[in-house]
């Protein structure tokens, strides 16, 4: 199994957390994993990107047009980052507006859930449901349980499961 995924968003949206979730899930599956993250000034609301490479790779970065999937927590990341993804079928965008991508309004669903801060996990749930990722939802949930701080655990799992269901 080899898979390359980019995660895009704005600083503060929780891109780093779902990067870690995917990395943990890979290890739970017994797979090699390499990720690359954005830290520093861009985290203050600027465009951020993570690269996740599952399987046998030596470089932590993904080349243009080589990502199997792009998970966009904000549509404003598209301009900068959609070039990484091989085809538009692999582009998943958190948005309520239609476009040349797989759109899903995770922000709206998280708001209806009463917890806008878990938009990232709601969207991850949706992507795990609809995209053929390297692992299934059980492994992802286990990874979320493993790395969530205890005060956040219940909410994170709820967010993920709601996204997976697609509705409240």
């Amino acid at each position, binding site marked *: 199994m080899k898979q390359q995924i980019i995660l895009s968003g704005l600083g503060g949206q929780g891109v780093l957390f779902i990067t870690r979730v995917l990395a943990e899930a890979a*290890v739970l599956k017994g797979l090699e994993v390499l990720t690359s*993250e954005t830290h520093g000034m*861009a985290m*203050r609301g600027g465009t951020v990107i993570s690269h996740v490479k599952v399987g046998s790779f030596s470089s*932590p970065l993904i080349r243009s*047009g080589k990502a199997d999937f792009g998970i966009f927590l904000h549509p404003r990341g598209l301009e*900068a980052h959609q070039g990484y993804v091989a085809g538009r079928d692999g582009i998943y965008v958190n948005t309520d507006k239609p476009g040349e991508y797989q759109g899903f309004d995770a922000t709206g669903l998280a708001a209806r859930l009463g917890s806008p801060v878990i938009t990232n996990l709601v969207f991850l749930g949706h992507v795990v449901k609809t995209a053929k990722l390297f692992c299934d939802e059980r492994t992802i949930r286990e990874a979320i349980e493993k790395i969530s701080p205890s005060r956040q655990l219940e909410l994170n799992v709820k967010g993920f499961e709601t996204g997976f269901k697609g509705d409240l």
Partner: protein
Amino acid sequence: MGKKDERILMGNEAIARGLVENGCTLFASYPGTPASEILPAVVQFSRETGARLHTEWSVNEKVAYEVALANSMAGRRSAVAMKQVGLNVASDPLTRSAYLGVVGGFIAVVADDPGPHSSQTEQDSRFFAQFAKIPVFDPSSPREAKEMIGPAYALSEKYEIPVMLRPTTRICHSRQNIPCAAPRVSSGKADFKKNPGRWIATPQFLTELHRLLNEKLEKISQEETLAPRRSPGGGPQEKELCVISSGVAYAHTREILEDMGAMGDVDLYQVVMPYPLNRDFVGRVNRLYKKILVVEETYPVIEMQLSNSVAEGRRSGIVPGQGELTPDVIEEVLEKFLGRLLREKAPARGKGVRPTLCAGCPHRAAFYAIKDAFPEGIFPSDIGCYTLGMNLGAIDTCHVMGACISQGAGFYHAYARDGRDMPTIVVTIGDSTFFHAGIPALINAVFQGAKFILVILDNATTAMTGSQPTPQVGIRADGQKGTPVSIADLVRACGVRFIRSCDPYETGMLSALLKAADEYTRKGDGGMAVIIAKHPCVLDREAVKSQPVYKVHVSEDCTACRHCLDNFECPALIFAGDLDRVVVDDILCIGCGVCETVCPVGAIVVEKGGKG
């Protein structure tokens, strides 16, 4: 051995784990992207494993280097970490430590930032190692960074020489599954052996120390275990072409060559120690290969040591002379070198969204008040979150740590000597930067008769790099209580006579203080004026809990003039195209209420009783 303990570690955490496992007894650092996460991980792993070591966020990199160096002189394994430009600050103790050497193993972790992503230069610390005459290791993955710590300590102790570990951003901020082990037995008891000829080393001793250093480097360049490695995957015979690479550029290069099925066409070498470059290797590759390509970040360190005028790389122009060597860049370089097009490229990428100060950030309030009070002022500033004041037009310069105060002085003297009308000069500096390098600059400004306003933006943390505590707070790196050092006391001791303090959320009061400070700097017997704008960083959740929360909304009186968007730029104030006016994003708004005074027509309404 029990069950294999494999974890996902960020490169910086992997380095920290390597230090703890290899018996480091003192670790000092100053925060700076991309090196900031090493120290918290050292603290965590030392707690977890029961390793006894002293950790500190030193006041700057020079101090960190010197503290760690003395621990090594007492015979104990030590390490220091910083970003590449931090090494500029620590260069003085670094260069001399090469001559005098070390006793307990000493590793300087210096994180480079090709690109740069979060730095003021993209300088190559391997060059600094060469300049200082110390060996440098260049890891190509987080796992390798951890695995290099043991050999680095061994080399340091064998030759009594500081060793540099030079990761780059892509190593520091990558994660990988990495095996972890228990710490090995730590260094011996502290035992400083007096040796004036070595530790005082007046000039009469230095030629001999330099000769010894040269001898060490000569031997290190012949250490077989540290020689460049030929990557597996090629055929048994050496080819006509070879690619020499190091660091993460090697990881990219290898993956691309494998991906293209080109490993059989070239010999690929990984240089694990770019300086001193292995002596036999240089002779061998120059003899064996018709064409040589060097792929390295950021400067031509290996390339220049090859002393081969036809080797291709940064100097021949085949590799761009600047910028990060991303896999996309390297792919093009390899295409040129191999003379074949590998694939069609995806279109170029756009720019993305620029970062901005957080909603409720106290810096924004201070900047707005400063810009409002002195629209024609000159605003030197410095390095930290507050550099984002450039979005508000409230800073005019950002040079290096602490430079803003000296720039304020320089601007003052420029206008004063010229006899021109003196513009109001307002310098802004963060609390951590003030401690780091601002204090000598302030003493100098006072003593040399400069008169300007210095606003110390005291948010009680080093926010940009991940909220490391600063000395006035009194909490040390490991969470223990330290002795707080008061900023106001320091300012007073620097000779400043006008010192005021206020909460920048109170923009009216800050404006009044700024006016009073301006008058003071213009009086015949006036001088430097310092205002300490004190409000905790809003990323400090506990601090935010203790501040009042207001309900903020924008009324229909909004004329869509965009004054608030352009001059205040709070991410919680957004333009709603469908309503043709500004609205408040309730998710982002923290209810600080500062924006109330910003709207020219009073359309931003702030009421008591916001979300708690």
